[in-house]
């Protein structure tokens, strides 16, 4: 039963990753792509981590996996905040990195 639940959660997580990647590729500008990354990706990692934690078998490892997810959310939100601020300041002037 737990195994089925874990497999379902992992597959659902992969589905969110899929949504995130599609969003990254298909959304029109930087700001909407940020959505794709932070929302879908962290939910994906969350569901995946939950599934993996169920399979891990020991509470210590499960807690460690939960910590990975928690740190990932914090890091991703800060990173996206910074990137958004940068994009806003630079403006979407295209290939500014070819300087």
């Amino acid at each position: 039963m737990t195994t089925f639940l874990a497999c379902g959660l992992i597959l659902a997580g992969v589905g969110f990753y899929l949504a995130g990647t599609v969003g990254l590729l298909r959304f029109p500008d930087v700001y909407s792509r940020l959505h794709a990354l932070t929302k879908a990706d962290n939910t994906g990692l969350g569901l995946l981590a939950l599934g993996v934690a169920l399979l891990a078998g020991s509470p210590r490892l499960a807690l460690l996996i939960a910590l990975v997810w928690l740190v990932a959310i914090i890091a991703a939100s800060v990173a996206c905040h910074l990137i958004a601020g940068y994009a806003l300041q630079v403006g979407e002037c295209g290939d500014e990195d070819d300087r």
Partner: protein
Amino acid sequence: MTALDSLLALLLLLLAARCVSARSLLQAIVAFIVLGLLLALSWVRLEAPDLALAEAAIGAGLLGVLLLGTWRSLPLGHGNERIPLPWQGLRPALITTGCTVLAVLLTVALHQHPEQAAMSGLAALDQLDAAGVDQPVTAVLLNFRAYDTLLEMGVLLMALIGTLMLDSPLPRDTELPARTMLPATLAQLFLPLILLIGLYLVWAGAYSPGGAFQGGAVLAGAGVLLILTGFGEGDGRDGWVLRALLAGGALVFTLAGLLLIPVTGAFMAYPQGLVTPIMVLIEFSLALSIALSLLLLYTGTPGLRRRGER
């Protein structure tokens, strides 16, 4: 799993080609950073979690940031170039032929399975009981390749001395695009965690993947985080404490090896019963030296200070 390996190999080659052929230097650097991620996955697939840890600490925490920092310090457009494609001229064509032949020969060679390969490893595994630690890679590093570890520390220090003689520190960080408290908060939240996992890796190196180098690299990453979030910066002057810590790893290692010669009769052999405490002492001093050397290699300065301190 073979499908996974094939895809991994394909992506590795794709990114390597991108890294070499991208016109802008930034794009080449970004491709190299992503290649580091995939390399970590390759280490996992090749049953080398030690190397995956090292790649995580070095690739994500140090090398990528150093490359980006150096790129930022270069003048506009510096390093943007178009590499000639294989069919554009005689020289590229010849070089391509040579490299392709090399790659094909190497692929063939790597698929050969000669008899009695890797005798050194069998010998080392047989002797593992004699060592004080259980984890094969750390045990090999500390016992059978003690000279190697010592000289590796020496190479790190030499690179640091060379870098300091060049007197070309990374430029001071510019202000963040948005006035925000978030990075500082991030540093305060993550710093204890990073330090904890760094020290844990040094400690755990004895019986699970990890060790002085991985732990030291993680500690250096903590320093880089402090510098990037504006808590610290490189200093043009150095202090004796810092120098002592830098030399500490190599010194403790050599002294422990030399002073115990009267007891054990051999260089770098440790008396029974005292092996574990001596190993722990050596590992921690090595990790500290490695962390500080890597951090100073990043800043390119002989010292460190708090931001704003004179």
